[in-house]
């Protein structure tokens, strides 16, 4: 369990103060994966540096299982760091060390006996599926294999928390899925607490149990994946279930009102659209849609155009009554919203 409370980081640039983190609070229970998503400049890198104590936070606290990290004295900082294993975007392996040598690196630092290092390294390499690659140098490994070595190295000191900074951003889609599956598998098996910092919504969709949206140094939305995805007003839902831009149709339904509908969980199994058509005896057309399974639940996000004469207030009431999120589609998204999430949605669609 990692708890971050009101974390602030202010950099001084000459006489100007730059607020990189403006009161970040989050908590991740043991055995679960939390995604922190945000575009560049949102404060992700600063958050990573504060969590690993590479930078001291200006205020606030970071604690692991109740042990405070951010206020430890400089002499204890190294022991504190060993409670967090870190996976980097580019693995950051030592080129002069073999795969086994890289995994052994954190163990050598605390003078672990040689035979113990050897058995631990063998165990870790088999855990990440790299048996037989002990003597390979990083230059002889593929990007995915290098990242596996990086994960094994991060786990070498038996950390409680695994912090992954853009772990798959440099990998191709198939390798990304392999690495994410590995992280998920290890989380369950070793009961780790995992934080994944990413700009890829795909990563959140695939492995995260909960998610936070970081913007301008603040967490502006957070929650379990199912909860944020099921909320029509949530920016994360828009990013998790993106709708492509679509023009209202110029056909039989020209001029009809356009609705946005979000089904979640059990509602997604009901034949809602045909229900509306039958109940109100109107025609309707799907303009855009996105259907996904997130955190084991099914979600559907649709943009639907009704016939011109349809009473959309009655339709909205009908949908709300059945627990389905629905609203009149905005003709244009507010500029603020679009700017904040453009980056996130743009890269996933």
């Amino acid at each position, binding site marked *: 369990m990692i708890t971050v409370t009101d974390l602030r980081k202010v950099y001084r640039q000459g006489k100007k103060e730059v607020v990189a983190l403006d009161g970040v609070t989050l908590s991740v229970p043991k055995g679960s994966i939390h995604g922190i998503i945000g575009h560049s400049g949102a404060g992700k890198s600063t958050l990573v540096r504060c969590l690993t104590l590479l930078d001291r936070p200006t205020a606030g606290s970071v604690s692991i299982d109740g042990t405070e990290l951010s206020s430890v004295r400089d002499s204890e900082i190294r022991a504190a*760091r060993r409670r967090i294993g870190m996976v980097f975007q580019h693995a*950051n392996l030592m080129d002069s060390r073999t795969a086994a040598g890289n995994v052994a690196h954190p163990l050598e630092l605390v003078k672990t006996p040689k035979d113990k290092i050897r058995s631990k390294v063998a165990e870790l390499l088999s855990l990440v599926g790299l048996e037989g690659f002990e003597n390979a140098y*990083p230059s002889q490994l593929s990007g995915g294999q290098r990242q596996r070595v990086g994960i094994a190295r991060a786990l070498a000191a038996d950390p409680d928390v695994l912090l992954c900074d853009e772990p798959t951003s440099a990998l191709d889609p198939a390798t990304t899925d392999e690495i994410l599956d590995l992280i998920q598998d290890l989380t369950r098996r070793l009961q780790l607490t995992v934080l994944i910092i990413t700009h890829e919504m795909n990563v959140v969709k695939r492995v995260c149990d909960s998610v936070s949206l970081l913007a301008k140094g603040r967490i502006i939305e957070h929650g379990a994946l199912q909860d944020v995805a099921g909320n029509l007003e949530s920016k994360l839902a828009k990013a998790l279930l993106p709708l492509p831009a679509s023009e209202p149709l110029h056909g039989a339904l020209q001029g009809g009102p356009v609705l946005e509908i979000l089904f979640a969980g059990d509602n997604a199994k009901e034949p809602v659209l045909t229900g509306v058509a039958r109940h109100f005896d109107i025609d309707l057309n799907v303009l855009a849609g996105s259907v996904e399974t997130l955190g084991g639940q099914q979600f559907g996000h649709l943009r639907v155009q009704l016939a011109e004469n349809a009473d959309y207030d009655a339709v909205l009431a009908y949908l709300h009554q059945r627990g389905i999120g629905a609203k009149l589609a905005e003709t244009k998204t507010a500029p603020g919203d679009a700017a904040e999430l453009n980056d996130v949605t743009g890269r996933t669609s």
Partner: protein
Amino acid sequence: MNDIFSNPVLAKALPEAIIETLQMVGISAFFTVLVGLPLGVFLHVTAPGGLRPMPVTNRIMSDVIVNITRSIPFAILMVALIPLARLLTGTSLGPIAASVSLSIGTIPFFARLVETCLRDVHHGKIDAAQVMGSTKMQVINKVMLRESLPALVAATTTTVVTLVGYSAMAGLVGGGGLGKLAYNYGFQRFDVTVMIVTIVLIIVLVQVIQLVGEWISRSLDHR
């Protein structure tokens, strides 16, 4: 060809000159690495944004000592350092005395090369080492020096080749070696054979150093 073997200068003075040159290069290379390597590490680590920033000390070391020493032409530095050589070795003549000025002349040069090598170590590797709980010394030894070892060997090779050139110059002001032989006999006595033989020997020496250095550097490089 007969000339080479029958030349009295070559027969008598050449072996000694070769040994003197090797002595000068060997001794000064040893001290250059001994002092220059830590100095280069210090310059890199104390630079702004380094592992242990010490802006004022770094400025003094970098600007005053290294840059001033490097901007004095070696021929002048060598003559200027004769009193120091006499103080340290008891004499101003011979290869041992010459090694003093040779070392002092090349230490700043080598330190700069070391600094450049260390700067090329990817910052992510240093972050990774720190996050896994390395001390600063462990970061320097296990990451910075180890990861830049191929480059450091190449820098040492360049420095030793430079020392061969400097040692010939040192020969002119009493250091002895092949430089003295070429100057005294080849130049002042117009003995063309001596001149050619010493030049060829120096070229061979440089080639051997370069080849060995490159071979070691390559065998250490796993990138």
